[in-house]
């Protein structure tokens, strides 16, 4: 671990620090808490700074978000071990078919959407956040989450189904509560 020399620091500042909002937002949704996200994002930035020499250029946001993600999952494992383990049982929660009408009723309002999103297991939640909030491409999502590029589409499809399910069918919440 070395000091960044001023030139590296300026590069870090120019390439990585503009994505502090992305780092925070991603951490906030993974951890479902602003306060925890602040600490973990801080830790992730520190790691990013430490590893910056190893950054070969390319997509700095994806590179940073990958570090944020790893930091978040380590934090979850340590502080909320149950949460990071839970996977959604698709068979158990065959969703009622969501239609534009049923969704229209259910998907109104920030609080409702927040609740629904927060009931998803983190591995699905992160896909929605990266795609819909952060506007990441499939390639970026693959880089950040280490999902093979070829399966990003089907994973997103599952995540979206879970989200719709959580929106129209409150029983989904109990599955991971």
């Amino acid at each position: 671990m070395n000091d960044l020399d001023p030139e590296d620091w300026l590069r870090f500042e120019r390439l990585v620090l503009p994505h502090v909002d992305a780092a925070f937002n991603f951490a906030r949704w993974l951890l479902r808490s602003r306060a925890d996200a602040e600490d973990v994002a801080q830790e992730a930035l520190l790691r990013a700074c430490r590893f910056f020499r190893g950054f070969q250029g390319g997509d700095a946001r994806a590179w940073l978000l990958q570090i944020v993600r790893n930091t978040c999952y380590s934090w979850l494992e340590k502080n909320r071990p149950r949460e990071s383990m839970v996977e959604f049982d698709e068979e158990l929660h065959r969703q009622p078919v969501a239609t534009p009408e049923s969704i229209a009723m259910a998907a109104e309002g920030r609080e409702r959407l927040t609740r629904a999103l927060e009931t998803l297991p983190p591995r699905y939640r992160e896909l929605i956040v990266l795609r819909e909030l952060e506007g990441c491409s499939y390639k970026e999502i693959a880089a950040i989450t280490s999902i093979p590029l070829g399966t990003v589409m089907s994973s997103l499809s599952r995540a979206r189904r879970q989200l719709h399910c959580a929106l129209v069918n409150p029983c989904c919440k109990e599955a991971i509560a």
Partner: protein
Amino acid sequence: MSCDLTRSALHGYFDGELGAAGNAEFKRHLEHCSDCVLEFATQDFVRDSLQRARLYEFAPDSLKLRKRAHLRCCVRPAASPQRLIWQWLAAAAALLVVALLVWRVLPGVHDDDDYQAELAAGIVDAHVRSLQPGHLTNVDSADQHTVKAWFDGNVGFALPVRDLTNDGFSLLGGRLDIVQGGTVAVLVYVRLGHVVNVFIWPTREPEVSARMGERLGYQWVVWQKGKMEFCAVSDASPAELEQLHRLFAG
């Protein structure tokens, strides 16, 4: 949903990830698949709701400021105990030297070893941050009276706002900023395309002569006048900053 594509290609199409040929093909499929049409409408509705709900959460300023100061302190090598002692001694020696020329600011933090370095870092950080879009000014005006009136309503001390247009420094406006957890007033000038931030805060310290320095490619000069401390930062030349200092101090 009976059509399998609602769980695969539809999402690629919805996200614009199928490529031109894939898009065209799926579009043709949509013309005669009611399952996909319905699913597409549902997806579209949810995306729209997510957008409207403004779920994106921006980093609090405290993170942005803390982060920078923190990162700079912590990127140092993991030192062996012996090395740590040397570093400590070096820091102490450096502190002794700078203490003679101190530019002290916010009362109550002088006991911090890294105080000097942190303050310089804090000021330069604030300068760099101010250069990001939307961060430069809270009040935009080239008129010194307008800017002064804004500060009078927002800070607890009277601010000497100078019109230096004739000397080549155009006033852009002012803002409040945070340096080391304390609020400071900032006058923003531009000189031949170089933004110059003049940080100003009240001080109780006895006057010392002006000091200049450079950090990460930015020049700074700090001075005191009439119970106020000033620090100008810019990527303009040292001579230009020195000129600004004379204009303010004179």
